[in-house]
């Protein structure tokens, strides 16, 4: 993988032209060179803009009390986008994406006002020390105060223009982010996982909060699970504090499998049984090698004036070795180790799994019992600084973690910043529980040192049959990339503005960019709400865009990942045909025949349409045997057969 930003290799012009003509699409295979994102003019509302394969439909600045504060995350319900802000939250009616209408702005300061929604309930995170229970803006000066809110606020938004504050749940470390988990088996409640790594409150402020790491009741090394009775949200309360990090052995870094780690643990235990010396470092038992042990034994022997080593010397060392090594590495084994909290957890209830981005680790969790998540696997990565968030692909066969190196306030996409740092790491899931590293992805255009830029929040796009994601990179803009081939992710669309201020990092850029019902909505930290649409290109055809738009959600919390299901449509069948053209899974003649038949069936109706589609489905099934992309050919046949039934 190239480490430095460098111009992409241009596709041979002839091949490019052939592809564009064959696909019947507009848009270039590659963006213009040099990358148009480089050298954009600075400005808040008059910055230079570069876009490729996507288009800004509208920009709506935040209202006055919010405009100078930080816009944060997004949630969606029906035709509304709910946008968090460090001063509260805003609800936009986005029925007309070209003209969003502000319905409500609710002043209630808290960092970072992470938002989620479920039916009539709105959930807002509060983490900072200045958040108040009464939503006041004056902060909280006392180190211990009854006025402070650190945790989760709950509002009833049945009347969108008149929200009602129905309750708050206080937590020991506040809530940096949270995740709403809708349990398919529990219609009466929803669960909220609280994440955040800020300091633990005083027990005088919130009884039961224990700061000491070595106390069994420590508020560190756990997450909080809040149960919200839907009929009585005011009764929401913490129901469990699962210690999902317990006994977390140092996970494999890529190149090393978890089987290697298990084998290492067996070897260490066997060595201990044979009488060799072992120590436990961060949950992993290690054999102390002879060259390390011999001088220590020697000094014990000499200290008692002996000349030959005895069993007593060995026993003395066995008793003290752990302490000796701990002192050498500045560790304290009486303290727990490992991550003390997660930054974010993405739950995917349809497959019963969650991805936790927790300190120096990426975790895979079983969430079938919502109040008692269980860790299945963990990964670490030498290039990852701080695991920020997780996204599954729609099939649940891959997981992508992002690294918010520098915390989001720093410029980490300069030409001198390595491509593996502040990036995404993509893993395949095998056996349902093992994560295998495949590649890194980082927005590829070098940004200036005045633009805070690092991997941040994004979501899948419902392009059928492919893994495509849009992601916010703060002032690095939006990047849309295809990670169907997990080892070779590549960018297929982008949007970027110049820096807010050319002389210094002024807070700005996209906090979150999510697909919702046909558009991409981005929360711009200082510029308001942006809405985009995809434009067809060699990488995403009009049929694929149309098929994506057939997926309609009633609501979306991106950290509660929905499973996309595509209703039968002609767009869906044509999208698969376009993909088979791209992969050369069907010949030109076969494609022409399929497309022609689809067009004729579309203009037919009733029994004639059904008969034509069933015949086509049978014919396409017959193509599979001779195709290099047989699975996709069968998917196309299935989509045509479903269309016949619909």
């Amino acid at each position, binding site marked *: 993988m190239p480490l430095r930003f460098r111009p992409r290799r241009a596709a041979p012009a002839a091949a490019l032209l052939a592809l564009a003509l064959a696909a019947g699409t507009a848009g270039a295979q590659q963006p213009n060179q040099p990358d148009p994102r480089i050298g954009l003019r600075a400005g808040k509302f008059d910055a230079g803009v570069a876009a490729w394969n996507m288009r800004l439909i509208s920009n709506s600045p935040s209202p006055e009390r919010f405009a100078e504060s930080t816009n944060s995350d997004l949630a969606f319900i029906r035709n509304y986008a709910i946008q968090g802000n460090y001063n509260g939250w805003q609800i936009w009616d986005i029925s007309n994406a070209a003209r969003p209408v502000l319905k409500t702005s609710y002043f209630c300061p808290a960092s970072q006002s992470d938002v989620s929604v479920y039916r009539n309930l709105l959930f807002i995170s509060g983490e900072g020390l200045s958040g108040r229970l009464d939503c006041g803006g004056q902060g909280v000066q006392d180190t211990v105060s009854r006025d402070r809110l650190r945790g989760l606020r709950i509002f009833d938004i049945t009347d969108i223009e008149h929200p009602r504050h129905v309750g708050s749940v206080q937590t020991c470390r506040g809530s940096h982010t949270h995740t709403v988990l809708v349990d398919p088996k529990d219609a009466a409640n929803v669960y909220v996982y609280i994440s955040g790594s800020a300091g633990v409150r005083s027990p005088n402020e919130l009884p039961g909060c224990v700061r000491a790491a070595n106390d069994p009741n420590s508020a560190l090394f756990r997450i909080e699970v809040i149960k919200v009775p839907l009929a009585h949200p005011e009764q929401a309360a913490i129901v469990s504090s699962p210690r999902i990090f317990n006994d977390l052995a140092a996970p494999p870094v890529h190149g090393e499998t978890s089987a290697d780690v298990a084998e290492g643990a067996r070897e260490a235990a066997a060595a201990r049984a044979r009488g060799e010396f072992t120590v436990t470092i961060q949950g992993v038992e290690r054999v102390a090698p002879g060259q390390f042990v011999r001088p220590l034994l020697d000094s014990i022997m000499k200290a008692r004036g002996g000349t030959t080593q005895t069993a007593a010397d060995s026993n003395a060392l066995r008793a003290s070795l752990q302490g000796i090594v701990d002192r050498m590495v500045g560790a304290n084994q009486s303290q727990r180790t490992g991550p003390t909290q997660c930054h974010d957890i993405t739950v995917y209830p349809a497959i019963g799994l969650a991805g936790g981005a927790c300190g120096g680790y990426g975790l895979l969790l079983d969430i079938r019992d919502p109040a008692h998540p269980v860790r299945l696997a963990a990964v670490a990565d030498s290039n990852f600084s701080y695991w920020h968030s997780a996204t599954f692909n729609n099939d649940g066969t891959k997981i992508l973690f992002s690294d918010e190196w520098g915390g989001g306030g720093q410029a980490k996409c300069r030409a001198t910043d390595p491509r593996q740092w502040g990036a995404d790491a993509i893993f395949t899931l095998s056996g349902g529980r093992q994560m295998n590293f495949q590649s890194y992805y980082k927005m590829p255009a070098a940004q200036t040192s005045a633009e805070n830029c690092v991997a941040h929040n994004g979501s899948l796009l419902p392009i059928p049959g492919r893994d495509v994601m849009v992601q916010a990179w703060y002032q690095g803009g939006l990047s849309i990339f295809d990670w169907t081939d997990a*080892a070779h992710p590549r960018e297929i669309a982008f949007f970027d503005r110049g820096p807010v201020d050319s002389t210094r990092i002024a807070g700005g850029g996209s906090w979150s960019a999510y697909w919702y019902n046909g558009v991409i909505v981005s929360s711009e930290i200082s510029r308001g709400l942006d809405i985009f649409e995809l434009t067809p290109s060699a990488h995403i055809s009009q049929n694929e865009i149309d098929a994506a738009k057939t997926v309609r959600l009633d609501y979306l919390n991106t950290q509660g990942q929905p499973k996309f299901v595509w209703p039968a449509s002609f767009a869906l069948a044509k999208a698969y045909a376009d993909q088979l053209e791209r992969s050369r899974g069907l010949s030109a003649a076969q494609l022409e025949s399929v497309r022609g038949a689809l067009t004729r069936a579309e203009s037919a109706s009733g029994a004639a349409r059904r008969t034509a589609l069933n015949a086509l489905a049978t014919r396409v099934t017959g193509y599979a045997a001779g195709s290099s992309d047989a699975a996709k050919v069968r998917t196309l046949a299935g989509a045509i057969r479903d269309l016949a039934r619909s």
Partner: protein
Amino acid sequence: MRRSRITLAAALAAALAAAPHAAAQGTSAPPSTDAAAMARARADSMRHPWTEADARFMTNMIGHHAQAIVMANLVPTHSTSNAMKILAGRIINAQRDEIVTMQTWLRDRGRPVPQVDPAGATTMSMAGHEGMAGHDHHALMPGMLTPEQLQELERAQGTEFDKLFLRYMIQHHTGATQMVSELFSSYGAGQDETVFKFASDVNVDQTTEIARMQRMLVDLLFGEPSP
């Protein structure tokens, strides 16, 4: 995908070579004349006035970070380990950027701004008061190395250097997390959005890095070079 060690090493070498230049840029920036930024800082401070404890933290952490960079700058010439060079590159990159964040915060609030010279010494200057005599800022913050420890580190080479570096950087990072704890137990502190976020990030990043360095150190003590 396996990364190429050669390209990674080359990139790091380039990044490290560029370091003094970037450091100089970061530390000699003229006092901000950006009225909008000053106004915004004032507006923030009206809502949540910063305290002496906030300003002290932002001031003292500059010197603390500066020493971490001095230590990490020794790695290319004193270590042969690729893992050590990645670690050092990361520390330099992160902490240099964070120094700029702290200097900007102080400057916007009209506070004296510690300047860092290439040797890692910090001197105070008053934003907007050109030519004002600075004073050496030598107070040792928690975890900082004494001049003797720094010399000991400079004298070490190879694996011995690596072990000593890790031990001292663990000590250094642990001190930074103590400074964050002290900040948040001070009256009125951390109400300022930037200070709260910055201090929380320092705490999380350095705690994560301590765990990583402890694993590396055990590998060295037990004679298994890190990959």
